Each structure stands twice: as C-alpha cells, then as structure tokens.
C-alpha cells in the first residue's frame, strides 16, 4: 500500500479523533486539574489535537516507509562511532590551548551567574529567594537550547567538506552538535550543585528527577536544530535572524526576573513559550520540591515531540539537495 497525501491526512484525522475521545473519558485525577469551565479547557484540547495530529502523521510516515527507516537504522548503527568521535572532537576543540581547559565548562556558567546576580539582585533588586540558584537554573536550560540550536544550524554548512567527499548520514551533524551541548549541560550541573551547596539551599529528593526536563529540552532542541540546519542551507540569512530571535526569546523567558513581574493578563502568553515550561519544570524540582502534574508533562513532551517530528521530516525531505547548495 502506498501512502498518498490524502490517505495520510484521512488516517491522521481518524486516529486523532480516537485518541481524543479516549482522552475525554480519562478520569480527572489522571488529567490533572482539568478546568470545569470550557474556556480554560478549550486551549488544552486544541493543543492536544495539534500535537497528536503531528505525532500521528509522523508515525504513519515512519510505518509506511519501513524500508527507508530500516535502512536509516542500519546506517545509524554503522555510523555511531562517527557520532561519538564528532562529539569528542567538539569537546576537545573547545578548550584547546586555554590554560584552564575543561575547568571553563564549570567556571563559565558560574561567572555568568555572578554577573547576573550582581546586576539583577543587587542593582535592580528583584525579590527572589536564592537568586543565584534561580538564575543558574534558568541559564542551564536556556543556554542548552540556544547553544544546541545555534551549533546545529551551522553544522550542515560547516561540514560541507565532508559531505562533498564521502557519504555520511547527514543527520549525524546536527545530532552531534546537540549531544555536545548536552555534555556541556552536565558540566553546568556540577556548577549548579556547587552553588546549591554554597548558598545552603535545602536538598530535596525531587532533584533526582532533573534529567526529565533536560530530556525534554534535548528532544525539543534537536527538533528545532534539525529544522534550522535544513533551512539555513537554502536560506543563509537564517543565521542572523536566529541570533536576534534567541535574544528575544531569552528576554521572554523568566531567567533573571520572576514571572510575577509580568502582568497577570499576559501570563498565559508567557506560558506559550516552551522554554519557560522547561525552566519552570526544572525549578519546581530543584527549588520547590514539587513534581509537576501530568498535564505539565503532557505539554512539555508534546511540544518536544512535535518539534522533533517536524524537524526530522523537513530534514529528511531536503537532505539530498544539501550538496547542491553547499
């Protein structure tokens, strides 16, 4: 059976509908505080519909193109050493010839945190409990995202020399850059722990769940990175646009200011920023000792999966033409 666009759309709609009906019958305890008012409920329903549709469409494509996927998996198995070497090389290159070397991975977030604390806690006087930890947690997630996406964006163009010479699965490049950023996050986590101990913050067992928001951010960044790297090959201006956009996004994410600074009316708009969701998740675990409810998890995972599906699809669709534009 072949997969025509019409058929794909039809099956997607059907499956989404089924998924939905099932969801509506779930007991309230699982869905979290599902609002009684339809007004609050509607955006959630819409969000779920879009997320489910995209994910289901992607899965359908994967199932229908089994041969293609099998071949991709085979090639991944073959090139996983390359992935490992590329990540290692990124890491080694980064601190080559600097005196302090790897130490910078921990020092850098610490110093940035100090500057931000000086400016925002002592000059602007924001009232936040344990500002150093607050700011560092925001930085950790946000810098992960911005570094991973920016590096991925350049990765395909930057590897032109390799792509022109020998066959290598192209997704290796954004993937390796995203994983390199993940390695960096691990070092930032060390810095985070140091600050945590130093400021005398209370340890909570929920801190052990920290890999979850990091995982969501990883999936999300990988998706966005794949999309960007593909787009940049054909449209180089993206490099500059994305630089400005990440800056905007940084100010839209409550990293160095409390969310309470935003007028109540605008807060739902802030909630649309997936990075805020991830940052908030991270802070709930580390600062407040709460485990976010199921709904928050659905939102985070949904956004991340959507980004991954769209990014992978666009990337795979365009990858044969990269070489003509590099």
């Amino acid at each position, binding site marked *: 059976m072949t997969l025509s666009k019409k058929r794909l759309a039809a099956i997607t709609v059907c499956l989404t509908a089924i998924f939905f009906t099932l969801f509506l019958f779930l007991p309230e305890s699982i869905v979290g505080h599902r609002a009684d008012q339809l007004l609050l409920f509607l955006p959630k329903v819409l969000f779920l519909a879009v997320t489910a549709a995209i994910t289901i469409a992607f899965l359908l494509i994967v199932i229908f193109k089994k041969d293609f996927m099998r071949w991709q998996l085979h090639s991944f198995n*073959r*090139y996983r*050493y*390359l992935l490992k*070497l590329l990540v290692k*090389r990124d890491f080694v*290159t980064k601190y*080559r010839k600097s005196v302090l070397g790897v130490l910078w991975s921990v020092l850098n977030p610490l110093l940035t945190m100090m500057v931000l604390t000086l400016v925002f806690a002592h000059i602007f006087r924001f009232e936040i409990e344990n500002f150093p930890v607050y700011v560092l947690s925001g930085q950790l997630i946000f810098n992960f995202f911005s570094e991973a996406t920016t590096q991925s964006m350049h990765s395909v163009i930057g590897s032109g*020399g*390799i*792509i*022109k*010479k*020998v*066959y*290598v699965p192209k997704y290796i490049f954004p993937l390796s850059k995203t994983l390199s950023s993940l390695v960096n996050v691990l070092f930032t986590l060390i810095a985070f722990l140091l600050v945590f101990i130093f400021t005398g913050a209370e340890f909570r067992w929920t801190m052990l769940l920290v890999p979850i928001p990091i995982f969501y951010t990883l999936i999300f960044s990988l998706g966005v990175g794949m999309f960007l790297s593909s787009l940049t090959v054909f449209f180089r201006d993206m490099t500059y646009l994305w630089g400005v956009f990440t800056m905007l996004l940084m100010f839209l994410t409550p990293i160095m200011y409390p969310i309470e600074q935003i007028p109540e009316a605008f807060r739902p708009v802030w909630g649309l920023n997936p990075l805020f969701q991830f940052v908030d998740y991270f802070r709930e675990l580390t600062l407040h000792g709460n485990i976010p409810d199921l709904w928050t998890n659905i939102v985070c995972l949904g956004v991340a999966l959507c980004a991954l599906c769209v990014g992978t699809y666009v990337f795979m669709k365009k990858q*044969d033409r990269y*070489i*003509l534009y590099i």
Partner: protein
Amino acid sequence: METPAISVQNVSMRFNLSKDKILGIKEYVVKALKGQIFYEEFWALNDVSFDVMPGEVFGVMGFNGAGKSTLLKIIAGVFRPTMGSVTVNGEISPLLELGAGFDSEFSARDNIYMNGAMYGYPPQFMETKYEEIMDFAELWEFEDVALKNFSSGMMGRLGFAVATSVRPSILIVDEILGVGDYKFQAKCEERIQNMISDGVTVLLVSHSIKTIKEMCSRAILLEKGRVVCCGNIKDVCHAYGDE
C-alpha cells in the same frame, strides 16, 4: 547468476544552472511573480546503465565534461541521482577525495580513527589496521604531530593508506593517483594491483588508453552524459581513439 557488485540503472543527473544573476530579493520576488525565473537545465548524465561484476576491473572513459566524476560520485553515494537507481553490494572505498574529515588541528593518529569512522569503521577495527596504515604511509615519526604541519604529500599518503588498508570490496579510483614521489606512486600502484588480484572490484577512471587497456577487462565510454558504448575493452578503446 551472480549479483553484480555495482548495478547502475537508467541513472540521470540534472543540475540547475541559474542563467541570469539575481541581484536581490526584490528582483527575485518580481521575477518569481512574473514566472520568469529560468534555470538552464544541464543533464550531466542521461540514462546511463551498466553492471559491474564482483572482481572485475571496470574502466570509465570519456573526455572532460563527459560526466565521469558525477557518475563516480553517484556510485559513492555523495550525489543522489535525479532519476534511476544505483545498487552497490559491498564496502566502497572511494579514492576520489582522500582524507574526508581530516582536521588539521589533530594528530595523524586521531585523524586515522576519524577518517575510518567516516567510512563507517569502528575504532576497534581501525586499531587492528593502525600499524599497517602507518607502515604504508611511512609516517611513524609524525604519529603525534598535528596535521597542519604535514606537507601535502604526507597528507595524501596518509589518506591513501587509510582508504586502502580497510580492505574494501569495491575500490573507486579516479586516475592512478598523483600522490607523493615516484617511489610512493609505485607503491600505490602495487597495492592496487595486489587488491585486484585479491578479487577486489575496481572502478577505474583514466584518460590514458594504455592504463585502461592494461588493467580493465570491460569499460564504458561516456560523451556529454550519454553512453557511447559499453562492453569489451577493445571496442571501447577503439571508439574512444576514433573520436
């Protein structure tokens, strides 16, 4: 019947050459709206088909611009053909472009592993080949020297050593290489000869009728992307010489 090592079926490759230079985004939009964006289509390859059997030494001949390099790049998997398909059974080692992924900041040792990984070989495997590679490239003294301090000849030797030491079952050779001094070239040729007698399939591009006649059993002649003739080496050489 034996399955061919390389099977090329009705392969065509189109490139778009943009005719007039588009100066800016405004002009681009205006032209796009008028439907005036033309690309000159250039068919680098047009309906090319042939099979190469395992263990065969197959020649590819043609004048400059005949599409030889494009064909080799398609077989190596660098280009995806516009139409048609290529099936390859075996491990290809393309000697088209040596040293994929060489990084001048790193040592010869690191680059050998990286280059191997680019061809899809795990580090454990490269370790077993390491000595052979260094012996062949004669670079033991420079094992830990960064590649940026290498001469181009040294770099070429290293690339050739890696590409041939991994024992591929298919070798793509674009001209018998001009790597290093005459001594090393003789060594390269000897190694390729050894591989041929070991039963490696070779796809050889050369302008020299003499080389092709000496080494190949069958060949294909391309002209402007089309197959002029394909088959017995004598007929093909005859056709090539006549033109």
